């Protein structure tokens, strides 16, 4: 049962081949068996099983939706009423969320079972899951390697079949890069497609939640539940949500695939390059055409992002002051000292670095040179995509320049770590939807992800292309050894 997709489990639950309680038990047992992966920060079997019992009752009455009774792991960035919600940080180590994030409410309403809260880089700041206060996560494909980040716990959980699917969030690549490094199908929707209400904010103009699954079909099933307008999120877009499962099988003959010449130059590992070339050749066999496009400002995406994201983070994280919730320092002399000690003790090194970079970029005398300059570059990067999409329907390239790197390899060098997101960051800056799908393996047996980038609100097309590719290939079906 544990190797079945969400779509398969949904059918099995509907036929009553298995109950949600049994299924939830199977996955809870696997979470416990493989706890050395450190994929979860919090599991609460009683809460999960209570939801499973309620789902079984609903299924028994008939008319339950596709996700009723299906266990789903939630990234620990989403507030879930009554669940400890840490965001990977010490500062929220004692925080029990008093309300549901909109997407948690939607999963609950759909009858899905929350299987637990997955590990992540602290406040989603990282590309390896090594900045978590709760320890790093191991990659099921090589337990000496990182699973990517920041949604590393969600990635490891789904890859190791500890959960059929999970949620992630993506500010600069945090759904797509860990999906690539663990052989998953991950989708970052268009900015505004999925509500950010109750999703602990990192960089508000870039953050977006999305599904991390094994197939495009499963990603469509989850996105159907997650997407939609939310009056509680001021940046939520009020646009109709299609049924993403209905357009999965459409023909892709004549699809124009744009290949940005800047993505295929130096910097990409040769084995990754070869795998991506083979994946694109496969798409051509399915009837797609290839056109060269250019994203001339793509090399500026990382410097631009490392101004805007820390600037927004420094503002968002000012709420953690030890007054209303979370950790408070034990020893302090006055109010100011209480703030400073609480934050110094509660935040980890990477979070503090980003808060300080952001504070500096926004401080008097530096605003124009950093923040405003970065916002102007952001416009150029978004314009590059607009022009590229005049001659193509989707853009393809690698998700990550390398396969999974070793634990500790980059953790002492923040700048080297930042370069892991070279192909993903510009998509967040523009606000476009992006996906990573399994495309093959390198000679060490580590997975390679193919990135698909679409036009605004064109998630259905990305899922369609991914589904057709997955019908012609079986990379996405491979399971890491040792987790059978």
């Amino acid at each position: 049962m544990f190797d079945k997709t969400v779509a398969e489990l949904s059918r099995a639950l509907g036929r009553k081949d298995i109950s949600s309680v049994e299924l939830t038990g199977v996955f809870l047992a696997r979470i416990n068996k493989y706890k050395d992966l450190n994929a979860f920060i919090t599991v609460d079997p009683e809460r999960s099983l209570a939801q499973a019992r309620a789902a079984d009752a609903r299924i028994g009455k008939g008319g339950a939706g596709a996700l009723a009774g299906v266990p789903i792991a939630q990234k620990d960035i989403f507030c879930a009423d009554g669940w400890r919600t840490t965001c990977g940080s010490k500062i929220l180590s004692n925080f029990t969320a008093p309300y549901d994030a909109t997407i948690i409410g939607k999963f609950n309403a759909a009858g899905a079972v929350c299987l637990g809260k997955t590990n992540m880089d602290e406040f989603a700041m990282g590309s390896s899951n090594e900045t978590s206060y709760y320890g790093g996560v191991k990659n099921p494909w090589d337990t000496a390697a990182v699973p990517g980040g920041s949604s590393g716990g969600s990635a490891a959980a789904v890859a190791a079949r500890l959960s059929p699917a999970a949620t992630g969030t993506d500010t600069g690549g945090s759904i797509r890069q860990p999906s690539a490094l663990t052989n998953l199908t991950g989708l970052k929707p268009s900015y505004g497609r999925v509500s950010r209400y109750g999703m602990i904010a990192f960089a508000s103009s870039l953050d977006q939640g999305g599904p991390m699954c094994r197939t495009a079909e499963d990603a469509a099933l989850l996105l159907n539940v997650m997407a939609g307008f939310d009056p509680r999120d001021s940046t939520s877009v009020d646009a109709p949500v299609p049924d993403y499962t209905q357009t999965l099988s459409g023909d892709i003959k004549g699809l124009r695939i744009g290949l940005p010449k800047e993505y295929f130059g130096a910097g990409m590992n040769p084995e990754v390059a070869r795998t991506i070339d083979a994946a694109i050749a496969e798409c051509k066999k399915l009837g797609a055409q290839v056109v060269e496009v250019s994203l001339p400002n793509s090399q500026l995406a990382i410097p631009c992002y490392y101004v805007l994201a820390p600037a927004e983070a420094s503002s968002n994280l000012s709420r953690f002051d030890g007054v209303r919730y979370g950790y408070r320092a034990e020893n302090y002399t006055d109010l100011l000292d209480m703030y400073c000690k609480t934050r110094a003790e509660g935040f980890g090194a990477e979070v503090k670095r980003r808060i300080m970079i952001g504070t500096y970029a926004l401080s008097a005398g530096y605003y124009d040179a950093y923040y405003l300059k970065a916002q102007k570059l952001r416009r150029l990067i978004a314009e590059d995509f607009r022009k590229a999409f005049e001659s193509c329907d989707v853009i393809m390239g690698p998700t990550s320049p390398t396969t999974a790197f070793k634990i500790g390899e980059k953790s002492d060098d923040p700048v080297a770590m930042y370069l892991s997101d070279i192909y993903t960051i510009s998509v967040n800056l523009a606000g476009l939807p992006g996906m990573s799908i399994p495309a093959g393996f390198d000679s060490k047996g580590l997975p390679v992800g193919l990135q698909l980038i679409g036009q605004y609100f064109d998630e259905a097309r990305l899922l369609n292309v991914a589904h057709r590719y997955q019908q012609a290939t079986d990379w996405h079906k491979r399971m890491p050894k040792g987790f059978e």
Partner: protein
Amino acid sequence: MSLDREQVRRIAHLARLHISEQEAAAYADTLSRILGLIEQMNAVDTSNVAPMAHPNEAGLRLREDAVSETDQREKFQRIAPAVDAGLYLVPKVIE
């Protein structure tokens, strides 16, 4: 642009982060390296480019000025470090 320890201390103060002397030296080094990466931005002339704050440039919505949330003060204050009689407690600020 490289930062010295004094600048790091000033930034840490603005960010309400307590840092030791030793940490100030370490941060001066890593933050300077990050700023080195950021300064690649200067390679491009952006004098005629309008800043883009957000992918959703349609602007923010307005809503009715009506009560939409219920009072859940007790529930929210249960998770606070220190409260008394419905108030959040902090160290004394006025003598």
